[in-house]
């Protein structure tokens, strides 16, 4: 009942790549934000996998920290999105390319 570590890592890589791709091709700022979360999750998976391989629980601790950061990031990020939407009335990042209103 064992599988190679690289399986997990490849899965994690696929998730990460999907996140990057989402960042590149998505126009909706919320979806882009979700892509970031996807990348974070991909990284989390590799953390846990490495923790399992090397029998070091600190890998899992890192996951917690990543989650905390993700939560903080989500709170602030979504607040920013709301603020942006209020001023620009759009969520399309292609239309939000000027700092000036």
């Amino acid at each position, binding site marked *: 009942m064992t599988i190679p570590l690289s399986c997990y890592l490849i899965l994690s890589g696929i998730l990460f790549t999907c996140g990057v791709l989402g960042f590149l*091709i998505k126009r909706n700022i919320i979806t882009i934000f979700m892509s970031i979360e996807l990348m974070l999750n991909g990284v989390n998976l590799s953390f846990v996998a490495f923790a399992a391989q090397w029998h070091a629980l600190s890998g899992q601790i890192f996951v917690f920290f990543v989650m905390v950061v993700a939560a903080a990031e989500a709170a602030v990020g979504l607040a920013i999105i709301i603020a942006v939407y209020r001023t620009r009335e759009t969520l399309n990042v292609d239309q939000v390319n000027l700092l000036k209103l």
Partner: protein
Amino acid sequence: MTPNPYLWLIPVLPLAGAAINGVFGRGLPKKAITAIALGFCGAAFLLALKIALGFSPSEAPYSFELAPWIRAGSFQADFSFYLDQLSLVMLLVVTGVGFLIHIYSVGYMADDDGYYRFMSYLNLFMFFMLTLVLAKNYLLMFIGWEGVGLASYLLIGFWFTKDSAAAAGKKAFIVNRIGDFGFLIALFLIIKHFGSLDFTRVFAAVQPLQPEIAGTGLLTSIGLLLMVGAAGKSAQIPLYVWLPDAMEGPTPVSALIHAATMVTAGVYMVARSHVIFERAPGALTVVAVIGTLTALFAATIGIAQTDIKKVLAYSTVSQLGYMFMACGVAAFSSGIFHLMTHAFFKGLLFLAAGSVIHGVGGEQDMRKMGGLRTFMPWTFATMGIATLAIAGIPPLAGFWSKDEILGRAYNANPLYWLLGIVTAFITSFYMFRLMYMTFGGDYRGAPVGGTHGRDHHGHGHGHGSPHESPWVMLGPLVVLAILSVIGGFVGIGGGFEHFLAPVFQTAPGMELTGEASAEAANKGMEYLLMGVSATVAFAGWFFAYLLYTRRPELPARIASSLGGLYRAVANKYYVDELYASLFVKPLVEGSTAILWKGVDQGVIDATVNNAADEARHVSDNVRHMQSGNLRSYAGWVAAGGAVVIAYMVWMGVR
């Protein structure tokens, strides 16, 4: 005596006064400013007196270390003070005369807007001067040296709204820099060869060296460089030009800084370094020659000046020349003796001149004075005493000190003596000329009042004739007059010299010709010389009387008959113009052409500008990367990430 542990307080007290007045003075009432300035300065004076009374020669020198300052390897320079007979004399002169002049300033500057500033600067000057005097090493001395320069600059340019004052301040500062340059190099040489700047350690290292009688060497170079510094600070040829201009400052400043104390710092420094000079006869000769020439040279200029303060300024230069002459013939204690008496009578002369200027409403041209004897009797009396003193009329202070110098000079080289006697004659002449022009005859000036004079302090209340100064100004005059009368008696029979002897004693077998022959000079010779100098002084008086009271038309005739010579003298031998065309103009033009147009614009600015232009070009092209589009940023990041990954994989493969 217990060496006073509060020695360090003497310089620090005026500093505190300066700080308080300088920081809070603007908002303080005038009385508080006065109290602070006088209080701190007076406290320093009292402390100095206390130390002097408790001074016992057997325990001197006494040194006190306040705090470590620079300690790098074996090199060491601390905030430490040094008290021996020499610095004690200086201490008393500086604090005493300084305190009197502080009191005088209260009256003199009473109506000035910058009163707090003035008092703060004066106190600051006191601090630096006392640091200079009390320093135990050359570095701390240099701090004081530069500090008095700063205070002098600030005070000369005290009325900085006046162009001439500001220019004079700058001139004094810059000319002093030349001297300081020499001083600094001397310090470097001392560090290099003796590894220390501490007086005792340096002198202990110099002591065993042989005098460089034939030829020159290290000590000669150090001595010459020190002399350059001293010439700058003490206004000797060729760096004397700043002192007459420094008369732009308020008169108390002229009295305190440019007559009594700061300008004598050079003499003090040379005397302090006597160990070095004694072993460098070449340097000593240079000192003597410079001193003698300066004395004569400045005195001749003094004849033709009409500005009362300028006359005194050239007189100061001349008297400083005497002091250097004394040092140059290794009669250091005579130099210091003359320094002290000179501080009394020259300070008095300046203060009295200030009183005169004050009384006639800011006029400084003697041709517009005259007959003031009746208007200001106290000023006349005190100034008369000072004039007698400086002219060398026995038994006043100047006679004793000047005579001692001349006697020593005669022993060293009669030529010095001859020039010195001529100078004494000229001195006597122009001083009495000043007296007759100012106080004799009838009043030639315009009615005083209304217009504010050059010294800015014109009186609000108009009055028609010159008037006597208030007692706060006359008090210091009287005290100084008394000192000018009796100050010379300490030197009778070599008392002063014996007091200073421990400082200037030389190692056995090292007596120089001047010193040695001075001991051997017979009494008869001495009295003869005394008689000659007294005669010369009276002769000068007589000539002045003749020319300016008996035959007032003579001076003009003499002047016209002398023609070019007179014009040269009146124009100070064109030295300023010479310096301007010789040094200043090439310097300015060189700086403009090479440094400004060539280096600054051509190289530095060009580099900066071209770099900026290039940066703008590059950024013009690169800025398209920063489109503001989030996704294109992500694209760049992804591409960059790919590069990084590729690099790392490639490294891993390799």
